[in-house]
């Protein structure tokens, strides 16, 4: 029974991105999805600061200070990339044009609520960035996260306890242990790592899980890519 690594979670999610989708990858684990996009698909990466068609990290020494992503890391442009200002960039987000946004999260609730920007109610420098815009705007929100926090507490919950980023917007969760759809009837597990029983997964979760008929095996796809 081997939980997926962070790369493994990103690689698994990447397999589900369709040809032709425009996708925003949040800062952190979601960014790594870019390294595992399946060959032969045109997948256009959006960054909030005004680009579609973001390419991979440039070789060292070839960074350009005008080419950075939302995490301020150096990027390149693919042939077919386009540049636009912040109003249009978030117009695309808010207007529902992105097929997918992948966000990291502290917590996801069974109604699709997500908390990913602040862990205390009175943090004077709580920083939201573009997360709330993406949460309401993208056609689907998928979350990548560790199934449990460092103390072992569940992050898949009946109700979020941290301040919300968005209400009822998460459609699917990819963790180190499982792939879980958020449905009108609550969480539905569609894949689980080899050797873990439904009961074990349930014990590590803070809300009732249902299991799809023929739950699949959650595999490490990092080598496949």
């Amino acid at each position, binding site marked *: 029974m081997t939980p997926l690594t962070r790369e493994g979670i990103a690689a698994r999610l990447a397999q589900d991105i369709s040809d032709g989708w425009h996708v925003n990858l949040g800062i952190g684990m979601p960014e790594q999805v870019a390294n595992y996009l399946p060959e032969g698909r045109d997948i*256009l990466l959006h960054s909030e600061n005004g680009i579609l068609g973001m390419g991979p990290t440039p070789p060292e020494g070839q960074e350009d200070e005008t080419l950075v992503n939302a995490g301020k890391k150096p990027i390149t*442009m693919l042939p*077919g990339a*386009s540049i636009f200002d912040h109003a249009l960039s978030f*117009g695309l987000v808010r207007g529902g044009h992105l097929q997918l946004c992948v966000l990291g999260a502290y917590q996801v609730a069974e109604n699709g609520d997500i908390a990913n920007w602040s862990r205390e109610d009175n943090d004077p420098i709580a920083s939201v960035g573009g997360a709330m815009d993406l949460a309401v705007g993208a056609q689907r929100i998928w979350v990548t996260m560790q199934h449990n926090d460092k103390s072992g507490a569940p992050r898949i919950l009946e109700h979020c306890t941290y301040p919300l980023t968005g209400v009822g917007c998460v459609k699917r969760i990819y963790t180190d242990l499982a792939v879980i759809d958020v449905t009108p009837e609550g969480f539905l597990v569609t894949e689980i790592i080899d050797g873990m029983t439904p009961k074990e997964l349930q014990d590590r979760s803070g809300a009732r899980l249902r299991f799809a008929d023929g739950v699949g095996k959650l595999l490490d796809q990092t080598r496949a890519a």
Partner: protein
Amino acid sequence: MLDRRCDSVEKALEGIKDGSRIMVSGFGEAGRPNMLIKGLIDSGVKDIELVSNNAGAGYEGLAMLFRHKMVRKLYCSFPRGSMGAEVKKWVEEGGLEIEVMPQGTLAERIRAAGCGIPAFYTPTAYGTKLAEGKETRMFDGVGHVLETALKADVALVKAYKADRWGNLTYLNLARNFAPLMAMAATTSIVEADEIVELGALEPNIIVTPGICVDRLVTSRRIAENEWGTAA
């Protein structure tokens, strides 16, 4: 592979239903997608709600949608024009409804639809009859009118250069409403003067990113005698 190019105008226009709300880019003849308009006429779609700054003129292009009685309602800023007397007659006969609004309000309502803004306040038209019945509100002592997003099922857009991802540039004053409409419709259909290789458009000069575009065809000028005759 993401390729928005279509083999024919028919394919580009496939699936447009009677009663659809359709935006058509252009200001006068500048930026008017005449090949797609001709295709729309050939498709025989009925009861269109048309969004266009004006109603067209003469016996070609946009005007033919009216002459063929395909338009049930027009959202515009300037229905008058060389065809004014006829437009007036069609309204009085009851076949055509017109919602007139200020040109800037029309533009901003379309932009709002594309950008996920359901409503906004504008000072334009406050205190005039075009604000009658609308919600108003004071900001800094100035009267404003609440206006709502104007979206559409389909946008027909004319562009200058395009690539297979749907990235678009426009030429001069042919830009006008096109970038706004491409973003505000469920299905955006573009005719471009030229479709170039992916990467041939410099990223900084692209006006409409391909994400706003669904289908793409190379433009062809429609000759005068192709428009046929109608009322």
